């Protein structure tokens, strides 16, 4: 699986928002203005990359031995891994923990060392902790993607997938916010103003993105 295929696959073909329908709350809530959408998009991109890196490490070295060794076995805590490792019982809960801690940590570091970026992303960073798209891309990168066809991904590949997931999210956010900015001054019937018309626009965008499916024979 090459990097170009991962990029095309996660940004266009299986776009997190418009094809997998993850992270819909910020997609509706923060797309009223393009500047907000861009801010949120970049914050998500940043967190997704880090989250994918951290969860890939956990998956490859603690939950399974796909990275070549397993920490639990190496430290003598368990004599040997059961078949399938601890993926089934520990995956979700450990990922949640990692993502929550990561967001906290990133916020702290940013506040101290990059105050400009912190001010720009400030409000959006804590919101991302509960963004299902981040969890989604972490799960996709490690277990839930098309493993049967393409085999496992390395830690760098998963991290790259996280970055591309963030780019895809940002792309969708910018597209919708542009549409909504134009809709805001259009003569929309009163019952459809604001969110309802945005839902219709979102549906049409998802239909448009359906056109990318199976492009170049990639199916993630």
């Amino acid at each position: 699986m090459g990097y170009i295929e991962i990029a095309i696959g996660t940004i266009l073909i299986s776009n997190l928002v418009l094809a997998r329908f993850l992270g819909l709350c910020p997609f509706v809530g923060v797309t009223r203005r393009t500047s907000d959408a861009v801010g949120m998009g970049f914050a998500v991109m940043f967190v997704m990359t880090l989250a994918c890196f951290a969860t890939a490490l956990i998956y490859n070295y603690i939950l399974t031995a796909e990275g070549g060794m397993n920490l639990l076995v190496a430290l003598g805590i368990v004599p040997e891994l059961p078949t399938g490792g601890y993926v089934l019982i520990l995956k979700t809960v450990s990922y949640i923990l990692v993502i929550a801690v990561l967001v906290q940590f990133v916020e702290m570091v940013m506040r101290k060392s990059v105050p400009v970026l912190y001010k720009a992303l400030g409000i959006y960073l804590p919101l991302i902790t509960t963004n299902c798209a981040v969890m989604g891309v972490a799960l996709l990168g490690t277990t839930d993607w098309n493993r049967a066809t393409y085999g496992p991904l390395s830690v760098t590949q998963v991290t790259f997938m996280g970055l591309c997931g963030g780019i895809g999210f940002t792309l969708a956010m910018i597209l919708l916010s542009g549409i909504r900015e134009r809709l805001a001054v259009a003569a929309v019937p009163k019952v459809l103003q604001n969110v309802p018309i945005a839902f219709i626009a979102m549906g049409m965008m998802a239909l448009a993105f359906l056109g990318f499916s199976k492009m170049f024979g990639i199916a993630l």
Partner: protein
Amino acid sequence: MEFDFNYVTVAALVLGSLAVLFGVGLAIASRVFHLEQDPRIEQIEENLPGANCGACGFGGCSAYAQAVVAGKAGPSECTPGGMDVARVVADIMGLTAEAKERRVAVVLCNGGNKVANRVDYHGVPDCRAAALMQDGQKACHWGCLGLGTCVRSCPFDAMVLGEDGLPHIIEERCTACGSCAEVCPKQIIKILPVKNMVHAFCRSHDKGGETRKICPVGCIGCKKCEQVCPVEGKAIHVNEFLAEVDVQKCISCGKCVAACPMSTIGNFRLSRRKKVAKLKGQETA
């Protein structure tokens, strides 16, 4: 997967050690990346309404809290919070809060549907857009365009677009933040003290005859109000065919209201309570 006690212990162990590791890591990080900040900023911010309306002149409640602590702003600048918040903020800062007059937004136009449209407007349904096109679709170049830009801008749901084509203020909810006054392209909304009951509801500087042709309730500049005003030095002045109430001097006696031949000047004294109740009913309906 069959139940295996080993799974439980491993799960507890892995999660427990991860949690301890992360906990220690975060504790160290919070020490290393500790940022010196005046604790009063947080205290003040907690006590502000959090509407981020910008009525104080700063970009949101957090910015205002910082400005207060830095000494750049007084404790009673928060209009939505009123005296209660001012007192708390003053306590935190060790200052005394001075009473700030309660003010509300007043729509200084009575035209609405009574004024005919010059043209049939089908553009962007926003007063600011309409005003760019030859001063809007109304026959009156000064008055309300009635497209509700102010109503949509109100962060407190304190405005309703009435059936008479004019925006109305639900004064109980109005915090005098000034959002509506700012967006109005005709500048017919003013933030005025609530103790002032009498207002001249017109902004038209057109000559009397012209105003009379297009609006049944517009000021024609007849100066009758000026003549009957009992206040020394007059609290209402006609300037370029438009009567304007001097809110500092006006005693709200209502004599000009009775004298006005066009019913331009209005009195809030009786209607203030009734109007609020009626409009609230309209909104829920």
